[in-house]
């Protein structure tokens, strides 16, 4: 008997025996959860910026399971704990189901017509009496590109105010500033594919293991296969990411710029600089934007010897030298960073200094080498950075200050170009300050929770309380819903279609597989219907499907650096996303920018490319910039009264303000409450024991919270995860912001801590 046949018979025999006791041995059948899911559809995870592909398993009209999408090149079937429970978020008990208007301090259920008419009337009143700039929009890196696009058109193009912001201002703005000033154009040159080619990873201000678990998983997998791969971490806190670290530098929070400079110093001194690359690809600039020579830059670095950097940052000079040598010696290197670098008063500069290391060593534009910023939200790159959802931007990486850009956009929007103001509107902090001052009288908040997520949050509650607040949300209650005058139930993930663009320039399509719960509606339609009621019928009635909106948007990206014109719905529905530029429907997408294979590079005239392997076409001469930025301290350094540096962040199991993950029993159970991490040495000194209730206090507020005595933060540093409104970390954080990117310094505040 042939073996195969025999194996089959044995299997049937075993299966039958098992079946007789009610156990199923056949895969897919043994599996209660998945046996039920009759159909699977590909989508994208709703949580972090990694952009994992997920499969939505549906039985009847219910989503019953989520699994990783095996065919997705980002995660190859793996997902993390948050993605795994996405289906449970859909059915959260805290879903907002009906439009509500607050009357006499209480929310009353109303019809959609009543709610929208009311908002339209109030907004028009404000617009008439106080002008368009008394209105504002505050969106989200979690909204779909289509949704942000509609809001952009309504506010910038029709109402005529550039007070149109989104929470990526609090998250990615410094990275944008860094890319623009260093490389000339926003967003990374490389992709996740570089991970498997990198010899060294520099993780700065990123707890990759918890905040981008699947990227971490790829790094670990790569290192496991190639034990010579090195991982170098710069972060004031030890995190689970440290399990794979080869060396970890612990700067005092906010003092790491000197460390990055000192690394550059050693790299040049010890001959690791790629002089050829520098000659042909790099300009040097001083902080005020003046061109300087390479020699002048080296002179500048003399101020940042490892010893001096040690005095500034607290990182031993020996470690800095070791780290610099590791970076220099590795043939390829990939840097990754997130909020530890971006959420700083010198966030743009910190970004510049990371780019410096890559430009000095030529570790860019080749497989395995890239300064690669990680995004926190699933569509911060797509919807807000590319879609132009900030007060100075227009769709397609355009700027409101550029007359040509305004014209191009106004034409497609079908609005008079004069509608679009040539001056940037109010950035997030200024916007909420204007709300406090009564200069902004009405705000539309979509898919985000600023009452909890703004730094020094309680400062901005005043404005939210006093002004007219419309909140479109999928969940209720949230910290922000307490302040809303009108609540509009928004369809959640899987109840709407649309596109998300993740960290690696990849745009991916998400299908609608469910009817929205209750009376919830898609945000883009809420905005469309509101716009029509406000008098913009002609401008908005043409949108009938999500695809209509997408097609109009991608037509605006044609010829732009982030060209998505070839990424039609038809293609996106089939493929696991496309990495822009995708200039035509037959273009496969672009792995590396500014170099061979990038359609814009390939099209350049030969004389420009001569002697160059990269051409940074966002810069006038195609050369990237190494910046000589001074090392500035944080806005609020520690002192005698507030001797601890407080830093905030995430845990693996929760996400942002917890409205989604805390609704999942498993995740709520995993980390049920907030805590403050304190080093055992500090705890001993203050007589604090593990699990004691302590008070953490800054100049802005105090918080009673449980102490976790653990050697994760360095002595002198405290850490609080920010997902709970009951233990609101942002009562303590500072609203000082980066003058360039306007991104606040969540990551450093001076604090004290004592037993309650």
């Amino acid at each position: 008997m042939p073996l195969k046949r025999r194996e089959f018979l044995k299997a049937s025999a075993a299966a039958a025996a098992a079946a007789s006791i009610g156990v199923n041995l056949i895969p897919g059948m043994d599996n209660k959860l998945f046996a039920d899911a009759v159909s699977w559809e590909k989508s994208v995870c709703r949580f972090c910026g990694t952009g994992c592909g997920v499969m939505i398993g549906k039985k009847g009209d219910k989503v019953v399971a989520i699994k990783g999408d095996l065919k997705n090149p980002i995660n190859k079937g793996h997902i993390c704990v948050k993605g795994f429970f996405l289906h449970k978020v859909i059915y959260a008990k805290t879903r907002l189901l009906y439009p509500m208007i607050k009357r006499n301090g209480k929310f009353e259920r109303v019809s959609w017509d009543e709610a929208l008419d009311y908002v339209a009337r109030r907004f028009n009143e404000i617009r008439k009496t106080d002008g368009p700039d008394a209105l504002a929009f505050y969106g989200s890196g979690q909204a779909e590109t289509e949704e942000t696009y509609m809001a952009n058109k309504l506010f910038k193009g029709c109402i005529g105010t550039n007070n149109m912001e989104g929470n990526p201002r609090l998250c990615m703005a410094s990275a944008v500033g860094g890319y623009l000033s260093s490389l000339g154009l926003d967003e990374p040159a490389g992709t996740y594919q570089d991970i498997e080619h990198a010899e060294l990873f520099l993780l700065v201000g990123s707890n990759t293991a918890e905040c981008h678990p699947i990227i971490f998983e790829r790094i670990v997998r790569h290192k496991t296969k190639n034990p010579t791969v090195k991982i170098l971490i710069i972060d004031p806190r030890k995190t689970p990411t440290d399990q794979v670290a080869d060396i970890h530098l612990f700067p005092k929070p906010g003092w790491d710029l000197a460390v990055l400079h000192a690394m550059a110093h050693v790299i040049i001194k010890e001959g690791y600089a790629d002089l050829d690359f520098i000659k042909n690809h790099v300009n040097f600039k001083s902080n005020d934007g003046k061109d300087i020579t390479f020699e002048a830059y080296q002179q500048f670095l003399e101020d940042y010897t490892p010893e001096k950097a040690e005095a500034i940052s607290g990182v031993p000079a020996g470690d800095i030298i070791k780290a610099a040598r590791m970076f220099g010696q590795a043939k390829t290197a990939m840097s990754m960073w997130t909020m530890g670098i971006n959420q700083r008063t010198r966030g743009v500069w910190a970004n510049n200094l990371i780019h410096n290391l890559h430009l000095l060593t030529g570790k860019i534009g080749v497989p395995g080498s890239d300064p690669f910023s990680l995004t926190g939200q699933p569509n911060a790159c797509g919807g807000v950075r590319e879609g132009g959802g900030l007060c100075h931007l227009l769709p397609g990486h355009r700027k409101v200050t550029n007359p040509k850009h305004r014209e191009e956009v106004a034409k497609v929007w079908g609005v008079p170009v004069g509608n679009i103001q040539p001056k940037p509107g109010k950035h997030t902090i200024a916007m909420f300050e204007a709300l406090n001052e009564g200069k902004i009288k009405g705000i539309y908040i979509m898919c985000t929770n600023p009452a909890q997520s703004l730094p020094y949050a309680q400062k901005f509650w005043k404005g939210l309380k006093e002004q007219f607040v419309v909140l479109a949300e999928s969940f209720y209650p949230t910290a922000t819903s307490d302040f809303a005058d009108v609540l509009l139930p928004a369809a959640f993930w899987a109840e709407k279609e649309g596109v998300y663009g993740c960290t690696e320039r990849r745009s991916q399509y998400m299908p609608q597989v469910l009817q929205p719960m209750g009376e919830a509606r898609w945000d883009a339609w809420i905005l469309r219907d509101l716009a029509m009621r406000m008098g913009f019928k002609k401008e908005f009635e043409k949108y009938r499907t999500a695809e209509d909106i997408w097609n109009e948007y991608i037509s605006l990206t044609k010829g732009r650096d982030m060209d998505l014109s070839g990424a039609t719905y038809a293609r996106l529905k089939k493929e696991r996303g496309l990495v822009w530029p995708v200039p035509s429907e037959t273009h496969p997408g672009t792995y590396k920018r500014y170099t061979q294979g990038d359609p814009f590079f390939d099209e350049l005239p030969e004389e420009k490319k001569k002697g160059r392997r990269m051409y940074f076409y966002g810069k006038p001469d195609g050369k990237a910039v190494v910046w000589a930025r001074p090392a500035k301290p944080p806005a609020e350094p520690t002192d005698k009264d507030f001797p601890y540096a407080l830093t905030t962040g995430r845990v693996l199991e929760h996400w942002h303000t917890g409205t989604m993950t805390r609704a999942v029993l498993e995740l709520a159970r995993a980390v049920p409450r907030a805590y403050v991490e304190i080093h055992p040495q500090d705890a001993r000194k203050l007589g604090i024991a593990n699990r004691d209730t302590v008070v953490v206090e800054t100049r802005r507020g105090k918080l009673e919270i449980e102490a976790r005595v653990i050697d994760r933060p360095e002595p002198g540093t405290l850490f609080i995860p920010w997902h709970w409104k009951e233990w609101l970390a942002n009562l303590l954080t500072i609203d000082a912001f980066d003058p360039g990117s306007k991104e606040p310094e969540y990551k450093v505040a001076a604090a004290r801590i004592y037993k309650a």
Partner: protein
Amino acid sequence: MPIAGVVVVTLPEKTSEVLQALKRLSQVTTYGVHKDNNIIAVLESESTSGLERLSNRISRSIEGVIGVFPAYINFEDEVPDQEPYPPVE
């Protein structure tokens, strides 16, 4: 060569020992423990009588076995060209 799919029910505290013992028998392939003390196994022998002997040997000589309960038998060699018997419901 006939094949039988069986459930070996064991005394709850002896399950793992029985499993080990079964794994040592060359004519037996195990498919894991289910519902605490049920071992799914496939027995192979030259003939149906051999199957029966094997089954008896298991229930008598391995300590902790409560019983061997077949659920499926295939004796294709003896009844050629016939589809395997459908699993018993």
